[in-house]
């Protein structure tokens, strides 16, 4: 199969200004997660009559989080944790340069953004796991599949932190969105566009010069492993996800 752009040479000049920054699985993960986080709220607020909707939404989020963790080890170069997680010194020196308005372009996540990703993944993963053990106060309306495997006090605790977890996620998401909008307004770096198109303008990127793409087959394997891990864990721990 001939790639479309080879048939349209007039676009080559435009394409040559860009480099690939994000692979398709990472972008699909990202935007599906955004959609599911919004739907998690919607399904709780308006789906009281269909408890399975909110539960299935939670399972889907857990699958995405597990997928992203696996992709952080097996995925393309900008998706790997090893590429974007920096120690305190790296984070501080990046932050210092940022304050002095020294532009340090990153092809992948910058050191501050990298930790934001970790916090978002951790908060959403924890929120999903808490949901598995949570229930409404009377245990009559909605109940996570693992609530029956723990004490009543544990269920109340899970429900309590599941509620607080929502506030935490809203705060993290607000910071995340504000930071990206500010970067794009101040630095014209096109971060948000890049997360949609997958491409960034060519520049002297200091983290990695170009994207090394992992195969689609690897992505599919990671996804299958994530589905198996989430539903397998629920069943092994004594729950029925769809009851």
């Amino acid at each position, binding site marked *: 199969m001939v790639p479309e752009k080879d048939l349209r040479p007039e676009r080559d000049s435009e394409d040559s200004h860009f480099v690939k920054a994000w692979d398709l699985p990472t972008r699909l993960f990202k935007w599906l997660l955004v959609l599911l986080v919004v739907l998690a709220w919607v399904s*709780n*607020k308006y*789906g*009281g*009559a*269909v*408890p399975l909707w909110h539960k299935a939404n939670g399972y889907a989020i857990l699958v995405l989080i597990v997928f992203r963790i696996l992709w952080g080890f097996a995925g393309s170069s900008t998706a790997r944790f090893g590429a974007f997680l920096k120690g305190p010194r790296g984070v501080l020196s990046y932050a210092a340069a940022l304050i002095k308005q020294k532009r340090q372009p990153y092809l992948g996540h910058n050191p501050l953004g990298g930790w934001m990703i970790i916090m978002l993944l951790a908060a959403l993963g924890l929120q999903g796991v808490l949901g598995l053990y949570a229930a*409404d*106060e*009377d*245990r*009559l*309306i*909605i*109940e996570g599949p693992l609530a029956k495997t723990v004490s009543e006090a544990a269920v*109340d605790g899970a*429900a*309590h932190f599941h*509620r607080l977890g929502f506030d935490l996620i809203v705060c993290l998401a607000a910071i995340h969105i504000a930071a990206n909008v500010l970067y794009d307004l101040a630095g014209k770096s096109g971060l948000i566009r890049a997360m949609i198109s997958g491409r960034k303008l060519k520049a002297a990127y200091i983290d990695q010069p170009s994207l090394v793409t992992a195969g689609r087959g690897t992505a599919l394997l990671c996804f299958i492993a994530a589905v198996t891990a989430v539903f397998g864990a629920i069943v092994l721990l004594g729950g029925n996800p769809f*009851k």
Partner: protein
Amino acid sequence: MSKFYVAGVLMALIAGSSAAHADPIEERQKILKGFGDATKPVAAMLKGDAPFEIAPVQAALDTYMDGVKKLPGLFPDDSKTGHKTEALPKIWDEKPKFDVLYEKLGTDAAAAKGNITDLASLKANFPKVLGDCKACHDDYREKK
């Protein structure tokens, strides 16, 4: 005889006045606790922990339909605190909106009662009623 008559009238007055002044918080707690108790056997059926039986389902729906007639009147302005009430102050900021939720519960319970005959129709109709419980609890009931 007139002594007995006076005593009788007095007792009736006392009984009447004490009924009229029964604490609205205790009253509404009793009704809502009754909702919960009536729901338990139905929730067990929905979860598949108990076989379908029509009687507890209809009893639960009747309990809701009966309770929603009284509940809107059991949140007077002087019943915001006491008796470990879990009623949030927001109720009195938006009382009309709050009362509509009881109305909706009554309507949905009546509709469900007409539609439920077996487990499939229970699963199709009862959760909507539970959704009404949840909508109100989410906004107006204090969380643990």
